[in-house]
């Protein structure tokens, strides 16, 4: 973790060339330091944070006054930091009856922000409330609804409930930070007295980091994969030397317990949808033996998506894992007890996260907890099947080698697809794909579940989702398309105004003949399977049903989507004349369906 001083010095490198996040910070205590820490952390993560900081203690005014600077600023992300200090102050001036309502009143306020039309499409990151144990009732506060302890705990719980109701609400768990590091770490009374600042300088980098974790996850930047070394990382000792009976693992006294508990944590990550892989310098059979036969192993072979055990370098093995998974190195975490291996991997694989594991395996877990490596902005039950899907992909890679032609291979897969609009069943997965997909994503428009629901209910919008199943298994929902009607006038106007697309409502009055592809993305799990052809056939069919004669696509380059730079050209679109801006057009009438080996289920 950076120190506050380092974060402040980072501001010198706060160049306009970095991708920008427009962030508003609204708090009821002094927030200048938090503002500095957020911007400095932004630089460390490769972002320029264009920060609007509301005047001190203006939470209510900024949100309730339609003419406030907050609304004028038009932030992507609004950070709301209401302190337990102010809450305690309000609490102490209330009657017992009012005290019992305190949490409800605050919740109603946050709910009103979530519903605020002026903030539609914005993400709200709300910091929760670290507890202050005022000991007015002692532990008996747990039995008194009007006590501060009761109200703060209830407030934190009700915030969680609220976040289930409002998809634009994200909670930053600084109460968890206090649980980990302590009240006396989070709060420095002598500094508070002279500054009205409720976060200590030691705590600020951690708080800023947790806020940025969420802001990055919303933008699709988060960890998807954990790669593990084996000897002295997953178990104690060296399997090749110590043998199955000699390695340290299992409950009871001793260091084996630390490794078992570490594995339990990894198992939970796998169940959450993190892809678990192994990279180990070992003979494969020897390395696999504990997974198959050791009674105290928590992780089993079917928990591991890609198992690389050989005598190649870790760097080569991690690259091999990347080729199967087809995800960016910056979404990978590598854990190894050996500082030498860590250094080599860090130096040779740009973007990968390599934590400095402590020497004592007993400290692994608490250290890893402190890093908050696996922040996410969504969770769906489909995540759980991901490991299986990658294992199946490894089998497909094997099978493909046995066919002479690609077409023969694709035909042999017996692929089927369910084509559907956005429904309440697939909305979480669709939203998640818009947030996660970076490589095969033409315009990288991120949508929340609420946004997806709005698109689904808009009759003007063509919303398409595609699943893919084959004889090895079900890949689930893997491609998403959003098309919107647009007229040609709007199209030329937009070329001048840059990448922002013009107001589509205006265009839709007079039966436009053109559909604009707002979103086309696909999971990289299903690359080179002809899904693009199948999707385009479907899109053209929908365009014809609506009497549209042209489909216009656009490629907006990002650091990660170079893979689809020629996507529209490869599919037979023509560059749009007089544009030169990555826009391509397809003539619907002249379109011949493309060959593909996928049938509609």
């Amino acid at each position, binding site marked *: 973790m950076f120190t506050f*001083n380092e974060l402040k010095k980072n501001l010198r490198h706060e160049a306009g060339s970095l991708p920008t996040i427009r962030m508003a910070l609204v708090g009821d205590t002094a927030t200048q330091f938090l503002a500095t820490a957020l911007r400095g952390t932004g630089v460390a993560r490769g972002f320029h944070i264009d920060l609007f900081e509301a005047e001190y203690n203006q939470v209510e005014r900024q949100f309730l006054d339609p003419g406030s600077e907050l609304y004028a600023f038009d932030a992507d992300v609004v950070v709301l930091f209401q302190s337990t200090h102010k809450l305690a102050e309000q609490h102490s001036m209330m009657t017992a009856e009012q005290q019992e309502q305190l949490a409800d009143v605050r919740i109603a306020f946050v709910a009103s922000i979530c519903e605020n039309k002026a903030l539609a499409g914005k993400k709200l990151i709300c910091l929760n409330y670290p507890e202050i144990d005022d000991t007015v009732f002692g532990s008996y506060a747990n039995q008194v609804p009007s006590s501060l302890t009761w109200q703060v705990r209830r407030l934190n719980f009700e915030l969680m409930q609220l976040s289930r109701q409002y998809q634009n609400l994200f909670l930053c768990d600084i109460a968890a930070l206090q649980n980990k590091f302590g009240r006396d770490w989070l709060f420095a009374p002598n500094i508070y007295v002279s500054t009205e600042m409720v976060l200590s300088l030691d705590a600020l980098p951690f708080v800023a980091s947790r806020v940025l974790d969420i802001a990055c996850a919303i933008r699709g930047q988060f960890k998807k994969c954990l790669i593990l070394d084996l000897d002295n990382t997953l178990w104690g000792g060296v399997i090749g030397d110590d043998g199955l009976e000699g390695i340290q693992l299992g409950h009871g006294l001793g260091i084996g317990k630390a490794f078992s508990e570490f594995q339990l944590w990894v198992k939970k990550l796998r169940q959450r949808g993190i892809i678990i892989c192994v990279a180990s310098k070992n003979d494969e059979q020897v390395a696999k033996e504990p997974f198959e036969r050791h009674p105290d192993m928590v992780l089993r072979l079917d928990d591991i998506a890609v198992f690389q055990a050989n005598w190649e370098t870790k760097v080569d093995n991690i690259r091999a894992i990347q080729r199967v998974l087809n995800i960016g190195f910056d979404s990978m975490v590598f854990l190894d007890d050996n500082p030498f291996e860590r250094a080599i991997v860090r130096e040779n694989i740009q973007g990968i996260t390599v934590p400095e594991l402590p020497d004592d395996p007993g400290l692994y877990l608490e250290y890893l907890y402190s890093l908050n490596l696996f922040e996410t902005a969504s969770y769906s039950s489909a995540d759980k099947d991901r490991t299986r899907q990658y294992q199946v992909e490894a089998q497909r890679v094997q099978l493909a080698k046995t066919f002479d032609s690609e077409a023969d291979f694709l035909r042999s897969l017996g692929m089927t697809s369910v084509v559907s609009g956005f429904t309440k069943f697939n909305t979480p997965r669709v939203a998640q794909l818009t947030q996660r997909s970076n490589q095969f994503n033409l315009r990288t428009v991120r949508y929340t579940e609420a946004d997806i629901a709005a698109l689904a209910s808009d009759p003007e919008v063509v919303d398409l989702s595609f699943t893919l199943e084959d004889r090895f298994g079900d890949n689930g929902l893997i491609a998403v398309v959003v098309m919107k009607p647009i007229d040609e006038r709007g199209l030329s106007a937009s070329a001048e105004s840059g990448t922002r697309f013009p107001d589509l409502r205006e265009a839709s009055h007079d039966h436009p003949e053109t559909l604009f592809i707002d979103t086309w993305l696909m999971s990289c799990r299903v690359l080179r399977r002809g899904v693009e052809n199948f999707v385009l056939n479907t899109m053209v069919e929908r365009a014809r049903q609506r009497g549209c004669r042209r489909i216009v696509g656009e490629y907006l380059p990002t650091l990660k989507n170079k893979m689809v730079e020629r996507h529209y050209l490869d599919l037979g679109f023509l560059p749009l004349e007089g544009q030169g801006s990555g826009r391509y057009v397809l003539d619907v009438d002249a379109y011949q369906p493309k060959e593909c080996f996928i049938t509609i289920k």
Partner: protein
Amino acid sequence: MERKEIINQLNGIFADVLDLDEVNLTGATTADDIEEWDSLSHIQLIVAVEDAFDIKFSSLEIMKWANVGQMVDSIERLTSQA
């Protein structure tokens, strides 16, 4: 600890926190004498000094210093108690 020694150490801390090549504090130096020494960096200085000398200033002290000399008085008092 000698006052001179304390001031020497403070020079290093101020240079680091305020991001300056060199700082030459005297007992009479005030925030007005150093451009980078503003109300925000003042808090950073306090915390950095607390950490360096392993002391905690009282809330009252933090607000009443008029110059570096008085800060040194506090440091002297707190370190001699240790």
